[in-house]
């Protein structure tokens, strides 16, 4: 693994993995405590529509994903605001519609589609320098926003009704949260692809939730776990010549099931 660091692509992959872990840990924790995993999955998958639009109109796919996933996030925020639990049909429809739109626009785009698989399953080993800068910027936006409104996010997540009664702008915060999820999704797609986003977003916080005494600590533990999963996944990928995204998720899944077994055994 050490000799692998001589390669620039490997150094970039490690750096990308760390940046992704930060956003993953922070946003994943908010996703898990707010019970909006399905909404996050919807945003991630619908992002494929953005790739289709970008290819069809001939601009940067990255820009397409950011723009379209933000749009979908705000639509979902509007639809699910008053009724998070019962909006799942609409989320499912948006989820599939985004993907279908992407596929059809790609059909209509002439020419050879180079690296579509990398959007579906990630390509952390092929992250260019320019994307690293973008990911750093997105991480700063995510960290800054959550830090600025931490007490409000905490109140909303723990007891939304109480937060509303106390005058916390829950509606606006909810839109901000889903917007941040879209940004995190854009980053995570780089690593594991849009199909596997949910796993990396939710497995670390799920494991962290039981061990953390506060939301902030849960975020920290999640960041460390994500980084560990990403780096060890990369190691497996490099050593055994396996797909990087899937390797990362397999490591995370392994720990997830181990965690479940341990919890089960302890409660017996």
């Amino acid at each position: 693994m050490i000799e692998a660091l001589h390669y620039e692509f490997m150094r970039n992959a490690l750096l990308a993995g760390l940046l992704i872990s930060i956003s993953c840990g922070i946003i994943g924790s908010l996703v898990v405590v707010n019970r909006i995993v399905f909404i996050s999955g919807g945003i991630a998958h619908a992002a494929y529509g953005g790739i289709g639009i970008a290819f069809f109109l001939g601009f940067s796919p990255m820009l397409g994903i950011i723009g379209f996933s933000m749009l979908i996030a705000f639509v979902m925020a509007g639809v699910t605001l008053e009724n998070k639990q019962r909006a799942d049909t609409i989320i499912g429809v948006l989820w599939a519609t985004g993907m279908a739109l992407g596929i059809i626009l790609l059909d209509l785009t002439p020419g050879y589609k180079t690296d579509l698989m990398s959007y579906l399953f990630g390509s952390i080993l092929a992250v260019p320098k320019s994307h690293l800068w973008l990911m750093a910027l997105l991480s700063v936006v995510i960290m800054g926003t959550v830090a600025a409104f931490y007490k409000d996010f905490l109140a909303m997540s723990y007891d939304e009704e109480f937060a509303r009664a106390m005058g916390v702008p829950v509606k606006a915060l909810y839109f901000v949260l889903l917007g941040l999820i879209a940004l995190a999704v854009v980053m995570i797609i780089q690593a594991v692809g849009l199909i596997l986003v949910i796993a990396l977003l939710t497995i670390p916080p799920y494991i962290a939730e039981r061990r953390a005494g506060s939301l902030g600590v849960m975020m920290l533990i999640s960041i460390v776990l994500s980084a560990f999963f990403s780096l060890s996944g990369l190691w497996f990928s490099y050593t055994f010549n396996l797909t990087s995204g899937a390797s990362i998720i397999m490591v995370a899944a392994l720990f997830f099931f181990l965690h479940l077994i341990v919890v089960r055994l302890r409660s017996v």
Partner: protein
Amino acid sequence: MTPLALEVENLWFSYGSHVILQDVNLQLKQGEFLAVLGANGSGKTTLIKLVLGILKPDRGSIRILGGDPSKTAGRIGYVPQETTLNKSFPISVRDVALMGRIGRLGRFSRYSPSDREKADAALERVGMWGLRDRPIGKLSGGQRQRVLIARAIASEPDILFLDEPTSSVDKGFQENLYGFLKELNERVTIVVISHDLSIVSSYAKSIACVNRTVYFHDHAEITQELLDQVYQCPVDVIAHGPIPHRVLQLHKDHEEDD
């Protein structure tokens, strides 16, 4: 002239086509101790949530302490039903109590040392100081309820709303709580949803019966004889105007609610 604690005018609310509350009018002076009674599903909790701005009315206006509820948020305390909260949430007792201060703060400001002192004092008041570092999920229902009460009084409210605050606490703390509310009532207006008629008769100054609309009794004496009636028969009828309605069901062996 001091503004009314609570002013509800011509309030309507429905879920879809199902009308929950219709044409509710209610005026409450400051310093009152109002008990809100009604059968399960009568709209008691909905009424409180509308007043607090958690739900939006279809029609009608609500003013708290003379202002729009969104403007007076910092002066309101709220104890929700304990059962609706996520019990695995990673948060300590102390941080839940501190949350009570949030209505007093600006959007970008952080909790100050004096906020923390007030939250800590509130925890001491409800006897939860010893468990301040416990995760909220590791408490019993009654202990959690006490923490929610601490959170509400930490905001030093001028008006305090409690939604069945004694549903999961033990009898000892229940009396303790009402004694404390009575003391608090010297400067704070109190609105409490309760199923417990003995509490209502000994502490409430006025009563609101909810059954799609609200019947207000401005002194608790009227209901003293009604309460005796209710105790004799677990399912009783109290007449309000032309249509009699069931106020509550209270069985000695069957006291759970909702």
